[in-house]
């Protein structure tokens, strides 16, 4: 079994990501289960036109809350346009804060 796992957000959720409930369900189904045994999990945003904070926070911050900051060593965010990268970084900060970790400046 491969120790890497890649999910395509555009293929699975669409090119326009705006619903936090959809993100939460997707994370539980398509990402969480792989983090325990994969060395690398790639979230591929290629083809995603735009997203909002509701979606990205539900998708990313919960990963840190549930798996701790160490999960950042496994997660790769691929194909992010500049605004998506802002949303990803902000969601990571939120996750670190919620997981009790210190936010490094």
């Amino acid at each position, binding site marked *: 079994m491969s120790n890497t796992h890649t999910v395509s957000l555009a293929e699975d959720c*669409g090119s*326009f*990501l*705006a*619903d*936090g*409930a*959809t*993100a*939460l369900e997707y994370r539980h189904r398509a990402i969480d289960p792989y983090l325990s045994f994969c060395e690398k999990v*790639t979230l591929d945003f290629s083809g995603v*036109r*735009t997203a*909002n*904070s*509701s979606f990205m*926070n*539900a998708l990313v*911050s*919960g990963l840190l809350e549930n798996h701790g900051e160490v999960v*950042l060593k496994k*997660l*790769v*965010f*691929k*194909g*992010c*346009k*500049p*605004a998506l*990268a*802002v*949303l*990803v*970084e*902000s969601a*990571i*900060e*939120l996750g*670190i804060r919620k997981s009790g970790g210190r*936010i*490094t*400046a």
Partner: protein
Amino acid sequence: MTVDFSKLRRVVPAAIVSLAASVHLWERQRRQVHFSGVHECEILGYLQRMDFFKACGVEMQESFQRWESKGRFVPVCMVTQPIDEMGADVAGCLAPGGEDYEHPMSGLFDTIAYVLTEVGNNIRQHSGGVGYAAAQVNRQEGMIKMALADNGMGILKSFQSVEAPWSMSTTHAEAIAKALEPRISCKAGEPNEGVGLTLVGEMVSIMRGWLLVVSGNGVLISRRDGSRTLEELPEGAFYQGTLVAMSFPETAASHYADHLRKAKIKSGLLHPGSGRAILEP
């Protein structure tokens, strides 16, 4: 309940959506709603083209040809469809071509989509009521005007419903101000992080736009110079639900990613230089 249109001369999206939401509420309460003076109304055609009467469930004959709305306005629509589809539809209408990332309108497209979906999510998750959205482009002024209104419980009651301790002895206006603070949510935990309205407020402010939030008898106005005031509606008036309306310069919205970053930093949700994500092209 009679709504008299005879002296109506001018209307903005905020008025159209809040009236549509109120009419829907009154009918849900089984109150008879009567529209009077409609045919004396100078802007009857505009109200019809904005689908105001249609949103209120009133069928009327039209004496004009319906031209394409793309690039000019978004007729009243109910906030019920999947929020991502609604965001794409409205953004595509106000910023035609912006769906293409390389298009000059893409920043405006992204800004509209972001604002609309975050406020729309609030309506769906918190209000317990029905929401309406409408928008307009004023090319002469170069301004985008957008509004979303619902007929739900309002911001104060929404905080009280989750027993936020501070909300038990506060006013509607103060509750609106609290809703614009980061990480203050009416529903704690996943998938809600309580940053939607905060970031919308910051982004409008960064674009030197104007924001109006009305809920209960509370009114928050954020002006283009960055000043904010909290007021109460006059003469005992009360809005059942929440109205969020804004206008911002079309050109300012082109720097979407930069504005989003600044809004996150200003809200304390992102710290410069703290990047931890492994980003691959």
